């Protein structure tokens, strides 16, 4: 790599170093907010890893997140904690491979609908299995992880997902995905194994989501399928990534920060009309910021660039 190639990873690490000491000074309210922002930052970046270049809109985030949370609930007290996260990652990867292989030949709306239903399906299966074999539907999670611990783990995951994204974008795989997003048939004719490329990145993305679920589970002392597999998670991740802009690695984070804070405030102050406000936020973003904040930045840069050129060549 040349010197220029080191800038992005170094910037990511530097930002993490700056953010790492925050739990030492923040109060519990701010900690809760920070953990929330970080959680969505990892989820949205992981989502955009796959959906950004391919334009396959996935709504399966909640399915993988919930799987991770349930892995922690099941194994948290049976295995050493340091082992639970890799196990969760493995489970996420295996399920994502199965889901990916069987559904990624669906495209467009069929894929959206399938992933839309996947979380619902997993939730119903878990509910059914818990009611039948577990006796109760809910489950207590008594695992000794502090708020700070969760924060640091999530920060580590954010660094990891950003670095992964950086490496994927620069690799052949990244180019293959972009080609698939442009035109899948053309990509196939150009000799790209579209299935392998799509499944590989889908699995990477889902594995991150599953681990985030496992990290977050101790935050609730009680989980049930409707908490762990809450479809709102998928929707929020989607809208955050879109607001930021899924075309760039750092894009989703730009959307996560304002929206995570906004949703937090709305949920605290208007719990009854939260759904309406969430819907309106969706509509506003779709109609007025279709290419995301990243798109706005690019437009702004274009305008500035043109103005700059005009100043340099006043005759034109």
């Amino acid at each position, binding site marked *: 790599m040349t010197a220029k190639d080191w800038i992005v990873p170094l910037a990511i690490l530097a930002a993490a170093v700056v953010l790492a000491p925050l739990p030492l000074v923040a109060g519990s309210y701010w900690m809760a907010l920070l953990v929330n922002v970080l959680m969505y930052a990892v989820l949205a970046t992981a989502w955009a890893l796959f959906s950004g270049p391919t334009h396959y809109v996935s709504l399966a985030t909640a399915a993988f997140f919930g799987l991770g949370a349930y892995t922690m609930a099941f194994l948290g007290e049976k295995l050493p904690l340091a082992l639970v996260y890799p196990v969760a990652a493995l489970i996420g990867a295996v399920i994502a491979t199965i889901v990916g292989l*069987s559904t990624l030949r669906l495209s467009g709306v069929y894929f959206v609908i399938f992933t839309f239903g996947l979380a619902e399906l997993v939730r119903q299966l878990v509910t059914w299995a818990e009611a039948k074999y577990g006796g109760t539907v809910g489950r207590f999670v008594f695992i000794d992880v502090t708020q700070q611990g969760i924060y640091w783990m999530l920060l580590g995951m954010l660094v990891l997902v950003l670095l992964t994204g950086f490496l994927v974008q620069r690799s052949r795989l990244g180019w293959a995905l972009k080609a698939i997003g442009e035109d899948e048939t053309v990509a196939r004719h150009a000799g790209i194994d579209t299935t392998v490329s799509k499944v590989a990145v889908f699995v990477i993305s889902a594995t991150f989501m599953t681990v985030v679920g496992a990290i977050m589970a101790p935050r609730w002392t009680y989980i049930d399928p409707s908490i762990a597999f809450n479809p709102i998670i998928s929707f929020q991740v989607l809208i955050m990534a879109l607001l930021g802009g899924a075309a760039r690695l750092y894009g989703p984070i730009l959307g996560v920060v304002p929206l995570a804070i906004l949703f937090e405030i709305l949920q605290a102050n208007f719990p009854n009309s939260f759904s309406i406000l969430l819907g309106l936020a969706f509509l506003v973003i779709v109609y007025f910021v279709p290419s995301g904040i990243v798109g706005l930045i690019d437009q702004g840069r274009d305008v500035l660039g043109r103005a700059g050129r005009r100043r340099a060549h006043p005759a034109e």
Partner: protein
Amino acid sequence: MFLVDVILSGLILGGIYALIAMGLSLQYGVARIMNLAYGEFTIAASFLAYVMFTLAGVSPILALAVAMPASFALNWAIYRVLMTPLVKRAKSPGALEVDSILATFGLLFVVQGILLMIFGGSYVSYSYLAVPVQIIGSTVALNRLLAAGLAVAIALALTLFLMRTRIGTAIRAVSVNPAAAPLVGIDTTAYAAFAFGLGGALVAASGVLVSMFFTFNAAMGVVFTMKALIVVIMGGVGNIFGALIAGLILGLAESLTAAFLDGGLTLAVNFALFLAILLIRPTGLFGKAAR
């Protein structure tokens, strides 16, 4: 005759699913809008019937006469105001698909939020014509039978309308080839809006019919959307006959699962069926064109 019971109730359920899905099939097949707020409109119509019945004692049949035109107008307006800008902006059919999915998500939450504010989250139902009727040695509630009968009647009326009238022919033309339809003087946007409204009228009808025998709450729209989508995709997008067959299959599968396997697994079985059909025939049972 336990098996007859199960099959009969499956067919009745399937007829209603088919009706729910026909509206969506029209909206997606003709107007090319994948309306994910669809189930919310079903539930809204159910609540309308519930309010009219419990507050004023108005029969659900009359509620149909109110809900269908109202929902037609509302959905027509939604297409004109919310969807037309997206149609104009879209560079490709794929872009419109994604945009419309996202916009109707927003709509889903808004409608659901409004329903939650008015009615809260609790389950409601009302008792209308809950009288047992004997058919082929099996007992069915009259309200279910009536709902299924009306569903069939509405489906027949729709089919005749699409097949036998000028407007119906134009709608089918837009559905088959939206690019070529203007060449023979068809105003595509106007017909797309009309079809979207018509789909809305059908969803309202199914909501009212379902409310006659079903316990529902404000958060349940997603379940109906899911089922309608499964039926539409299973049957082949835009294919009304396919929607009917797929609806019946789904209804049967559901009542057979509940009777012989486990009531908690109905959705899982539905979904497995959906996936199996998609994997064997990616365009659905009766779909033709790729994608």
